[in-house]
C-alpha cells in the first residue's frame, strides 16, 4: 500500500563534508502515505523529515541500496515527524518512510461514534472497541432491542453516593463538616466519610466519628435549632442498621445552622481531602448540602436524584405544559445520553429535513386568541408529536421513507409552516404553493430534479383542505373531526368569547376541510404545452441519466376531478405515495444521508448511465438499489446498511472528513469527557438547557425554529468563520471552567466537567503527576482517529502547558502540584480546554 516514496542518495560519505542529493520517484499514487520532506546527516545517521499520513500509529524508516529497493527497516528513532537512523557510512543510501496504520477496526469504531453517534465518550470508546464495528452497527440498526429508559421517571427511592474532593480549609481554625438542607424538608443520609487523600479507596481512616449513624447523634454530632427534629433512625439504612434522618425547618449554612462535627486534630490547610456520603432519593423538591467548613469541599444534591435526566422534562412535555425551552433541553439531553444514538442522529436529521419553524406556529396561535404562555406549549406540543412519531417509526424494522414523509405531511407544525393551513382552492382561488414547492424541492426530489412550476401549481391545488382544527382529545388522529365544543367556561354569555379557541378543551390536530378543496382534475408530472398549459396526454419520463433500471419510464400522476367531501384528502396521500419511491427521491435522500454520514462532497445529479463513476456516485447508486429492492421500498435501515458498510465509510480515509455543526459540537464536547462514576453520576454533564445557548450563538442553529425551509446545512463553510469559532472556543473554555469562575455563564453553571475525576479513573494513580502521561491520555482520548504518531505535536504542547505557569512563560513543573489541589485541577482543566480549542476538535 505504501507506494509513493522518495529516496535520497548519498553523493559523498566524507564525514564533515557530506552533501545529500534528493531524487523523487513515485510509483502509484497514494496521497495518504508519508512524503519525505528533508534529509540531513546527524553523525553517521540520516535524519529524515516527512509529512504525516492519516491514522499513523507509528512511522518506520527503511533503507535500501537501490532506488527500486529492496528496502529493509532501520532501527531509526522517531521524534515527531522525523526519523533518525540508517547508516550513511554504508551503501544503503536510499530511504523510504512507511506509516504503520492504526488498526482499521479502531478507525471504523471512531468513525461510527462520530457519525452515527454524537461523538465518542471514554466509556463508549472502550466498549465499542471491545465489541468491534460490526456489532456496533448491528446494535444501532436494531434500536428496538436496546433498552432505553431515558424518559422513564425513576420515582422509586434509592440510595445514591456522592464523592467530592478538594483541599482542606478551616473554619474558626478548625476542620468541620456540616450537613444541612437548602430549605425546609427532610432527607436520609448514611455513611459519611471524610478522609485525607485525593481519593478514598475505603481503606483510609474515616476522620468522622459515627459517620455511619449506627448510634445516636449525641456525643458525635451537634444539631442546630433549625434541624432539631433530626435523628438517627432505623427506618432505612444504606448499610448497617440505621441512618441519619435530616429534618430541616429552615435552610442551613454553617455550624450554627447545621448538623456539625469538628475533626480533631485539625487538618492542615491545603491537604487533599475526600468527602463522600450516601443519600436516599425522594420526591422532595429540595437540596441536601454536605460540606466542609471554609470553601474547599462542598456539594449539594437535588433529592429527586433526577439531576440532568430528560424524564421530568418529558413528563411536562407530554402533559402539554412543556415549552420550547424544555423541548430543546429534552432533545439535547437525548443526544448526550441516549444509548440509541443512531435514533437520535436520525431524529435530528428528520427534524431538520422536514424542517418547521416553531415561531411561525406560535404566531399562528397568538393570532387565535391565545396568550404567549398558552401558545408556546401548544406549538411545542406540535413539534413533540412529530418527533415522537418519527422516534416510534425508527424503532420499527421496516419503516420506509414514505412513513416518515407521511408523519411530516400530517404534522400541524408543517401544515402551519408551509401555509397549507389557510390555502384555498375552491372556485377561482389560487392555492398557496409553498408546501407543494418544498415537497418537490426539499422533501422528496431535490432542487431542479424531475419537477417544474407546472407540477407545483398542480400539487398545490391537491393540497387545499389540509388544515388544522381544535378537536376533542380523542379525535387527535381523526382528520374529519369537528371542532371541539367542550367549553372550559360554559357560562360565558358573549358568544365570541365562549367559542374562542382558548375557551375550548381539546388538541390542535391535522384536519381536512373538503369545502376548501380544489376539485378539478390534476395532471402532475406531465409535460407542458407550448401555450403554457399542461399536456394531459403526456406524462414526464424519467431521464436517461438514471440508467436502464429507471430511464424512460413515465412517472405522471393523474388525479380525477370531482373529489368532493372527505374524498379529497386522498389526493395528498396519493401524491406522497407516488413521489416517495421515484428515483428522484431515492437519489436525493440517499445523497443527503451520505452527506450526513460520509462527507459533504456528494452531489445531486450524477449521470449513472455513463462509464465515469466516482466512489461517491457508486455509493449513491448502491443506496438507490437497496431502496428499490426492499419490500416495502425505501426502508431506511436498508439504505443505512449500505452506507455504513461501504469502503468510503469504513476506511481510514473516511474518518475526520466532516466538520461538526454547532449542535454536534456542543453535545460532543460534553460527551468527549463523559464517563459514568460508581455512584451513577458523570465526569461530564449538562442539563440540556445550558447547551441551547451555544448551539444558537455559534451560527444561529435554533432547534425547532429554522426560518428557511431547506433546514440547517451540513457543510463546513456554513458553520465556521471567525465569529462562530470565537463562540465555539469560548464555550469549550467555559465548559471546562470550575463552576465559580468568571466566564462560566457561557456554558452555564449546569455544564459541569471534571477532567481530573476522569483522569483518576482511567490513569494509574502513580501517573497522575506525570505531565507526559496526562497529556498523552487526553490527546489520544480527544483525537482517537488521528493515529498516535500524529499526535506528538499536541501531546508535547499539552505536556508543556501542564509544566508552564499561568503567565505562559515561567516553568512550573506539573509534578510539583499536589493532586487534589485546586492548582492541579485548574492546570488540567486549562490543558484539556486548550486541546479542545484547536482546529482538530471541530472535526468528526
Amino acid at each position: 500500500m505504501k507506494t509513493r516514496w522518495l529516496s535520497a542518495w548519498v553523493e559523498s560519505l566524507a564525514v564533515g563534508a557530506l552533501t545529500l542529493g534528493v531524487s523523487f520517484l513515485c510509483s502509484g499514487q497514494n496521497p495518504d502515505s508519508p512524503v519525505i520532506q528533508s534529509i540531513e546527516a546527524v553523525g553517521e545517521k540520516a535524519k529524515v523529515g516527512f509529512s504525516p499520513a492519516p491514522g499513523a500509529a507509528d512511522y518506520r524508516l527503511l533503507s535500501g541500496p537501490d532506488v527500486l529497493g529492496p528496502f529493509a527497516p532501520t532501527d531509526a528513532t522517531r521524534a515527531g515527524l522525523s526519523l533518525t537512523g540508517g547508516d550513511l557510512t554504508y551503501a544503503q543510501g536510499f530511504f523510504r518512510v512507511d506509516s504503520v496504520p492504526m488498526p482499521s477496526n479502531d478507525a471504523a469504531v471512531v468513525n461510527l461514534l462520530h457519525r452515527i453517534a454524537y461523538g465518542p465518550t471514554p466509556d463508549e470508546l472502550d466498549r465499542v472497541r471491545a465489541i468491534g464495528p460490526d456489532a456496533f452497527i448491528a446494535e444501532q440498526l436494531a434500536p428496538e432491542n436496546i433498552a432505553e429508559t431515558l424518559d422513564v421517571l425513576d420515582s422509586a427511592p434509592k440510595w445514591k453516593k456522592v464523592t467530592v474532593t478538594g483541599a482542606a480549609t478551616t473554619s474558626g481554625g478548625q476542620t468541620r463538616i456540616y450537613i444541612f438542607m437548602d430549605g425546609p424538608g427532610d432527607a436520609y443520609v448514611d455513611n459519611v466519610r471524610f478522609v485525607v487523600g485525593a481519593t478514598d479507596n475505603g481503606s483510609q481512616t474515616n476522620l468522622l466519628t459515627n459517620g455511619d449513624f449506627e448510634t445516636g447523634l449525641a456525643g458525635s454530632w451537634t444539631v442546630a435549632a433549625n434541624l432539631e427534629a433530626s435523628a438517627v433512625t432505623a427506618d432505612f439504612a444504606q448499610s448497617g442498621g440505621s441512618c441519619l434522618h435530616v429534618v430541616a425547618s429552615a435552610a442551613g449554612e454553617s455550624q450554627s445552622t447545621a448538623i456539625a462535627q469538628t475533626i480533631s486534630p485539625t487538618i492542615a490547610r491545603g491537604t487533599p481531602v475526600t468527602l463522600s456520603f450516601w443519600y436516599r432519593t425522594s420526591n422532595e423538591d429540595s437540596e441536601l448540602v454536605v460540606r466542609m467548613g471554609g470553601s474547599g469541599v462542598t456539594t449539594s444534591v437535588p433529592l429527586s436524584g433526577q439531576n440532568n435526566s430528560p424524564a421530568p422534562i418529558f413528563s411536562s412535555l407530554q402533559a402539554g405544559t412543556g415549552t420550547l425551552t424544555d423541548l430543546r433541553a429534552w432533545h439535547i439531553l437525548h443526544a448526550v445520553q441516549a444509548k440509541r444514538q443512531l435514533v437520535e442522529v436520525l431524529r435530528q436529521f428528520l427534524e431538520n429535513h422536514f424542517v418547521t419553524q416553531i415561531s411561525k406556529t406560535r404566531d399562528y396561535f397568538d393570532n387565535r386568541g391565545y396568550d404567549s404562555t398558552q401558545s408556546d406549549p401548544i406549538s411545542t406540543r406540535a413539534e413533540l408529536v412529530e418527533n415522537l412519531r418519527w422516534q416510534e417509526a425508527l424503532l420499527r424494522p421496516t419503516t420506509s421513507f414514505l412513513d416518515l414523509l407521511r408523519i411530516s405531511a400530517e404534522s400541524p407544525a408543517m401544515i402551519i409552516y408551509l401555509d397549507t393551513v389557510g390555502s384555498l382552492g375552491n372556485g377561482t382561488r389560487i392555492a398557496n404553493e409553498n408546501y407543494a414547492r418544498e415537497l418537490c424541492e426539499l422533501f422528496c426530489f431535490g432542487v431542479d430534479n424531475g419537477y417544474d412550476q407546472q407540477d407545483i401549481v398542480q400539487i398545490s391545488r391537491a393540497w387545499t383542505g389540509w388544515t388544522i382544527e381544535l378537536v376533542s382529545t380523542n379525535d387527535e388522529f381523526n382528520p374529519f373531526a369537528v371542532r371541539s365544543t367542550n367549553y372550559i367556561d360554559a357560562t360565558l354569555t358573549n358568544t365570541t368569547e365562549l367559542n374562542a379557541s382558548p375557551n375550548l378543551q381539546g388538541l390542535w390536530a391535522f384536519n381536512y376541510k373538503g369545502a376548501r378543496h380544489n376539485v378539478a382534475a390534476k395532471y402532475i408530472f406531465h409535460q407542458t404545452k407550448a401555450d403554457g398549459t399542461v399536456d394531459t396526454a403526456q406524462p414526464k419520463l424519467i431521464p436517461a441519466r438514471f440508467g436502464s433500471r429507471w430511464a424512460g419510464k413515465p412517472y405522471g400522476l393523474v388525479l380525477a376531478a370531482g373529489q368532493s367531501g372527505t374524498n379529497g384528502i386522498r389526493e395528498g396521500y396519493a401524491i406522497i405515495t407516488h413521489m416517495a419511491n421515484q428515483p428522484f427521491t431515492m437519489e436525493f435522500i440517499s445523497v443527503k444521508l451520505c452527506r450526513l454520514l460520509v462527507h459533504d462532497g456528494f452531489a445531486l445529479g450524477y449521470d449513472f448511465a455513463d462509464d465515469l463513476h466516482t466512489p461517491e456516485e457508486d455509493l449513491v447508486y448502491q443506496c438507490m438499489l437497496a431502496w428499490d429492492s426492499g419490500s416495502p421500498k425505501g426502508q431506511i435501515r436498508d439504505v443505512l446498511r449500505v452506507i455504513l458498510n461501504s469502503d468510503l465509510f469504513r476506511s481510514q480515509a473516511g474518518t475526520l472528513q466532516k466538520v461538526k455543526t454547532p449542535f454536534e459540537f456542543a453535545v460532543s464536547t460534553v460527551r468527549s469527557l463523559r464517563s459514568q462514576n460508581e455512584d451513577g453520576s458523570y465526569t461530564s454533564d449538562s442539563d440540556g438547557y445550558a447547551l441551547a445557548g451555544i448551539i444558537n450563538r455559534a451560527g444561529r442553529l435554533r432547534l425547532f425554529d429554522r426560518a428557511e425551509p431547506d433546514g440547517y446545512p451540513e457543510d463546513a463553510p456554513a458553520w465556521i468563520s471567525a465569529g462562530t469559532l470565537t463562540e465555539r472556543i469560548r464555550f469549550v473554555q467555559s465548559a471546562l471552567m470550575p463552576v465559580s469562575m468568571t466566564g462560566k455563564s457561557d456554558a452555564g453553571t449546569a455544564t459541569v466537567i471534571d477532567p481530573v475525576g476522569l483522569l483518576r479513573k482511567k490513569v494509574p494513580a502513580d501517573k497522575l503527576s506525570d505531565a507526559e502521561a496526562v497529556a498523552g491520555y487526553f490527546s489520544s482520548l480527544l483525537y482517537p482517529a488521528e493515529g498516535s504518531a500524529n499526535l506528538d505535536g499536541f501531546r508535547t504542547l499539552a505536556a508543556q502547558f501542564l509544566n508552564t505557569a499561568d503567565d505562559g512563560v515561567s516553568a512550573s513543573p506539573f509534578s510539583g502540584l499536589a493532586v487534589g489541589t485546586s492548582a492541579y485541577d485548574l492546570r488540567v482543566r486549562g490543558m484539556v480546554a486548550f486541546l479542545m480549542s484547536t482546529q482538530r476538535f471541530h472535526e468528526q
Partner: protein
Amino acid sequence: MNILSRRSFLSHSAKLGLGTALASLTDVPFVMKRALAEGSIGLPGSNGRVKKLLFIFLRGANDGLNTLIPFGDSAYGPPNRVDLEIKKDPVQLYTALGRAVFPEAGSVAGTYAHPYGLSLGNGFAALHPSLKFLSPVYNSGDLAAIHRVGYPRQSRSHFDSQNYWETGAPNDNNTKDGILYRAMVESGLAYTAPLTGVSIGSSLPLILRGSKAAMTNVSDPTRFNLLAIPNTTQGNAKADAFLAAANQAEFANKREREFLRLQYGNLASSLEIFASMDFSEAGNTYRDDIATDGDTDYANANGGGYYLFPTTNEKNGGWRRSSTATRADKYVVPTSSYDFFTRLKAAAMVLNKTDALVAGVSIDGWDTHSEQADQPSADGLRGSHTGSHANLLRRVGWAVYALNKYFTRYADKCRWDDVAVVTLSEFGRTSVENSDNGTDHAEASVMFVAGGGIKGFEAGPLGEVIRSGVFNCGGSGDQSVPWQTGPNGTFFKATGRYLQRNTDYRSVLGKLIRNHLGATQEQLDRIIPGYAVAAESLKNKGVQTRDNTTVVGEPDFV
C-alpha cells in the same frame, strides 16, 4: 483584561499560517504585490480614501411590486392585488414630476401615519409608505431605485436563487465561491490584507466565501474575544500562546483541514483588529443632525435628532419624549429589529474604522406566503400598508437613511461619497396575491443602491427633473426597455404570471465593482464570468438568449 496583548499572540499564529499558504507571495514586498494587480480595488484615490461597499441581503425574496410600486400600470390593484394593494393618496397626483414625497410626521402624527404610496415624482412609480425614509436620500440625489432585476431562467427556489445571486453565476451549480470574494481575490487584496470582506451575522454568507482566502464573519460583535482557564489576563495570554503553537502543528491531509486553517488564521487577525473597536451598546451614540421627521418635540427634549441605529426602545425614533413620557407610534423601526441594527452599526463601523472594503448584513423573513399585510382595521391604522412586509421595509428605509447620516456626520476612513449601499434579494413575488393574503415565488424584483457617488435624482434650477433616479419603472429612466402597462404587459410578461425582468442583477453588481470599487473590465470578466459572454448582454442592451429576454445592460447609476 489586557485584550490587546493576548491577541497579539494569536496574530503571531495567523501571520505564520498565512505565510505557508502564500509561500510564493510572501517574499514580495507589499507595495509590489499591489502593483502586480490591475485596477484600483482597495487602492486610495486622489483624496487618499478607498471606495467601499455595504450590502444588505433581503433573504426570502422581497415583493418588489409592493416595494417600488408601479402605480402607472393599471395591472397593479384589483383584481390582482386586493388585500395587498397599497392605495393611492386621493389628493396626490402620481403623474406629477418632481421630488419624492416625504410625509414628515412632525411632533403630532405617528411616524408611519401616512397610509398611501409615496410618489417618486417620475410620473409612474411610488414607494411603499414604510420606505418613507428613502425619500430624503432620494431627494438629495443619492439613491437609485432599480426595478425589474433578475436573471435568465430564474429559479424560484430560495436555495438556488440565493446561491446564484451570491456566486454571480446563475444556473451554474459548480461555482462555489462568492462574487465579492472573487472581487477581493482578483485585486490581490485577499492574500495580503488581514481584513477585506466582513459580514456581521450568524455565519459567513456565500457571497464572501471561497477556498483560497478567508473573509471574516463576526456573529456577535459584543462578544468577540476568547476565554481561558484561569480566566485572567495571564491565563488568557497562556491559552492564546498555546493555541497559536497548536495552529502550527502539522497534520495529515483531510477534507476540511485547509479550510479550518484559513479560518483560524482569519480569527486571529480579526480578533486583533477589532480589539480596539467599541461595538458595545454604550458606544452607540450616533445621532441625526436635524429634528428627524420634523419631530422638534423630541429634538428639544433629547437634545438632537433620533439615534441612527435603534438598538433599544430609548434609541428607537421618537419613542422617548421626555424623561418619562413615551409614544410607541414614534418608533422608526419595529422593536424586533434591534438585533439587525446592532449588526448594521457594526458593519458601518467596520467600514469606517478599519481597512475592510466590503461589509454586509442580512435581514431574514421576506418569504411572505401568508399574512404579508394586516387585515384592515376600522380606524384605518392597519391594513395593506402595515403588517409583516411593511415592518421589514421599515428596517430597509431607516437603514439607508441612517447609513447616509452616519457616513456623513461620523466619517473617519469612509465618507458617504466613498461608500455604496446596495440591497439584494433573490427574486420577486407573484404579481397576483394568493388566497392567504400573501404572495408566492416569482421572478424580477427591486434593488436599491445608495451613496454619495450614486447618480440619483437631480433637479434643475427651476425644479425641473434632470434625472430621476428611478430605473425601469416609468419615467425618463425607463426608455430602453420600457414598462408595458395593462393586463398583457410587463406585469405578467414572464410566463404569463410574473413581472418580467429587464435588468440582470449581475449588471448592477458588475457596474458597482468596476465603476465604484475600481475593477478593470478584464478583472470584472473574471469576477463575473457572464461579462465575457456576449449572449448574457450584461454591459449593453441586448437579448439574453437563454430565455430570449431583452435587457438594458448596465443601468446608468454610478
